[in-house]
């Protein structure tokens, strides 16, 4: 792992720690810096980072505290306190399932 990927990992931890202390502005600063590092070094952000940050306001999301998580048919909707929604699928491993397929795939 190169330095940039490691920096993103560290910033993720820092953002989480700051959000846990309800210091959301500082968490935002770490999230923005991590995004910028990823952009400069042409790295994809880790999936955990993408799922737990708000695309619109860069807040670090803590479900139950500053984000609402609802399960819909085949996808998760996570709503930040700023009002932005993010949707991602759940179900089988390849990530692009439909709910009806699930019975066939489970071993």
């Amino acid at each position, binding site marked *: 792992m*190169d330095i940039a990927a*490691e920096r993103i990992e560290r910033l993720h*931890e820092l953002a989480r*720690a700051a959000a846990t202390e309800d210091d959301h502005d500082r968490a935002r600063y*770490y999230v923005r810096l991590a995004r910028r590092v990823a952009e400069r070094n042409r790295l994809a952000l880790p999936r955990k980072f993408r799922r737990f940050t708000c695309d619109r306001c860069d807040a670090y999301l803590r479900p139950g505290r500053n984000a609402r998580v609802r399960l819909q048919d085949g996808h998760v909707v996570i709503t930040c306190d700023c009002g932005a929604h993010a949707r991602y699928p759940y179900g089988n491993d390849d990530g692009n399932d439909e709910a009806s397929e699930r019975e066939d795939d489970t071993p």
Partner: protein
Amino acid sequence: MALTPETLPRHELNGLPVRIVESDDDSRVGLEGRVVIETTNTLSIEIRENGDSRVVMVPKSGSTFEFAITDDAADAEKASGTASKLADTQPAATDDSSAAADRAGGDAAGCRGDDPSRDRRHAAGEGVAYVTVDGSRLLSRPARRTETSGDSPWQ
């Protein structure tokens, strides 16, 4: 590429425990805390004493910083705790790994900056290595410090 004495000037400074060993302004010498915000020319250091915390903004140029770095295993353990715990615990770790990192540091340091000789490092107990860096080596935009392009003097 872990956080080692020679990669430190290119690595993330936020969150690292730091102490100011030398400064143009005598009142700053000896300040000790964690880096919370970095800008091109300054480091903001959060100092916790007797339960309350304050944030001091220190210019990078004109100061010499001593960062305390630990090996990765200890670091992951530290990061999983809460931030308040981060500030006042030095996690115990294996002693030999940081000493090895220290030796590996050697004089290969100075990937950027004009005076690598200012870089001193020494290991102390409990798996913590202290890296002394002149602030002028850290002058860079935080997101760009990691990049290696533009280091060569050749056009």
